[in-house]
């Protein structure tokens, strides 16, 4: 376990937001770069190869997904954490399927964000309550038969963990509630992330685009 501070790049098109994040995170991270557009983000991420990129979902020039598509393969050790005010399911699912290790909303506190960054830096997944709700909805048991049960269904335990995240519980509180360790909570969340990224189930994209129309 390294005690080195995570090196991060902040990608957001609002300067005031970037400086706010910097100030909130304070001593918890080393900010090695900032970018306000897709092109600038691709340049600064390949140049600095940070541990974690805080990636705004909405950006001029294609959005967070375009950054992931352009640069993620080039920097295999860099983890992406999506940060957004957007509640649009399609955007959220889009960046996760593009390779982001987590999604948090901009209402998050500085302390929680610092915690999310170090979790993602260590290879774990981070779900906001809203993302957990999205996943429960998209993988709802009422949907039609899965093509690949391994990837297209959540286990009862994974659903338990997601429900508690959606209820606003921290990983530590979830562990206590379900009588499992924080490590086990993390492994359930990582497993859900993998399913979310790899599942081919038709409902996932249809569900997300349906939500956009409302």
């Amino acid at each position: 376990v390294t005690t080195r501070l995570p090196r991060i790049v902040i990608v957001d098109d609002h300067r005031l937001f970037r400086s706010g994040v910097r100030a909130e995170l304070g001593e918890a991270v080393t900010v090695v770069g900032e970018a306000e557009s897709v092109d600038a983000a691709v340049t600064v991420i390949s140049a600095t190869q940070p541990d974690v990129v805080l990636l705004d979902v909405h950006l001029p020039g294609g959005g967070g997904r375009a950054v992931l598509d352009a640069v993620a393969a080039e920097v295999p050790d860099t983890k992406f954490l999506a940060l957004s005010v957007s509640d649009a399911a399609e955007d959220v699912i889009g960046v996760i399927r593009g390779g982001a290790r987590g999604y948090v909303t901009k209402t998050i506190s500085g302390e929680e964000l610092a915690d999310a960054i170090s979790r993602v830096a260590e290879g774990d997944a981070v779900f906001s309550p809203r993302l957990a709700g999205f996943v429960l909805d998209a993988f709802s048991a009422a949907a039609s038969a899965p093509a690949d049960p391994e990837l297209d269904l959540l286990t009862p335990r994974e659903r338990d963990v997601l429900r508690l995240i959606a209820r606003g519980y921290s990983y530590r509180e979830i562990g206590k509630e379900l009588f499992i360790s924080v490590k086990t909570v993390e492994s359930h969340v990582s497993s859900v992330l993998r399913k979310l990224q790899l599942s081919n189930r038709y409902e996932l994209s249809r569900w997300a685009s349906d939500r956009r129309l409302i």
Partner: protein
Amino acid sequence: VNLVAVGDARLDDRLLALVQATREAVVNAAKSSGANSVSVYAETERDRATVFVRDRGCGFDPAEVPADRHGISGSIVGRMTRSGGTALVRSVPGEGTEVELAMPLGARRANR
């Protein structure tokens, strides 16, 4: 107030009672807990709807609530039980409060 909703259902008078009880619980949390935010999680399944209202505020000791305080028992628990649902309050002083509301769906006459 951070709201997360899963599933969907047609609104009837039992669900309306659930919504009103949820509102009471949220207002209660906002007024009394001292917490900065309140989490609301609502899920509808085939046979029931469940809502959790949670805050990380001051909490209270349920055993020490005076009998003349009708806030929670009257407006939340009463509303839920009259409509055939249940309400459960869990609170730990210093850690916060969670109100769990559950309402069965479908087969209206069955529980009369």
